[in-house]
């Protein structure tokens, strides 16, 4: 079976119904697992976004004696 995508909550609940016959704590576990895996999948997509170059230049501009102001108000885009 193709397993490249996380199971949806609807799938999970259907699966749980088939094995348990009714709504049960075990069925809720299956649903919660589906929620957990979808949450991680959604968030991982965002984590994997490439970091813009501005941060790499910002980091390389920082030297050993931090004196920059803490607020970035003047860099309005």
């Amino acid at each position, binding site marked *: 079976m193709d397993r490249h*995508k*996380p199971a*949806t*909550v*609807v799938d999970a*609940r259907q699966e749980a119904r088939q094995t348990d016959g009714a709504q049960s704590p075990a069925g*809720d576990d299956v*649903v*919660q697992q589906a*929620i*957990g895996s*979808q*949450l*991680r*999948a*959604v*968030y*991982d*997509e*965002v*984590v*994997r*976004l*490439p*970091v*813009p170059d*501005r*941060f*790499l230049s*910002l*980091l390389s501009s*920082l*030297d*050993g004696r*931090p*004196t*920059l*102001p*803490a*607020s*970035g108000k003047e*860099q309005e*885009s």
Partner: protein
Amino acid sequence: MTDPDRFKDALLAELQSLRAFAISITGNVERADDLVQDTVVKAWTNMNGYTEGTNIRAWLFTILRNTFYSDFRKRSREVEDDGAHASRLAVHAPQHGHMDLEDFRRALAQLPDDQREALILVGASGFSYEEAAEICGCALGTIKSRINRARARLGEMLSVTSGADFGPDADSYAALAGADGGGAKTD
């Protein structure tokens, strides 16, 4: 005394995570990037406040979150009302994101901010309940109950939903995708 070179390497290693958390609480890539920039500068300025050997990601997330609530939120209130803001506070879908996760993104966007934040910290960023409580500056029990409520709510919303129809909020996704294009440069 924190070693500046090692500290810089650690900052670099955490940029992606910081950015993801910033996107999840601002709902807007441009504002998230401004927030990350302020966070990096604040962290650098206060590097001696970091205790080596402790979780630097938790330390940075705390700075980012405090910066958001003290500076950014105030600013955003001046230009839009809370309702409009709340509906956009979702984790973004990159353009190449999985379509079958769209229902989930919409449901996540409908959670109250504090519940979504707690859920993301523990369920997606890998923090313990204790660390999440520290990052959010609240009691452990508060984090636990936010997460429980978030999970229960998502379970309800997603169990009755399948396919395209997800109520009046469906349009907001187009706006999110549009806002996304202005942020990260990808090819």
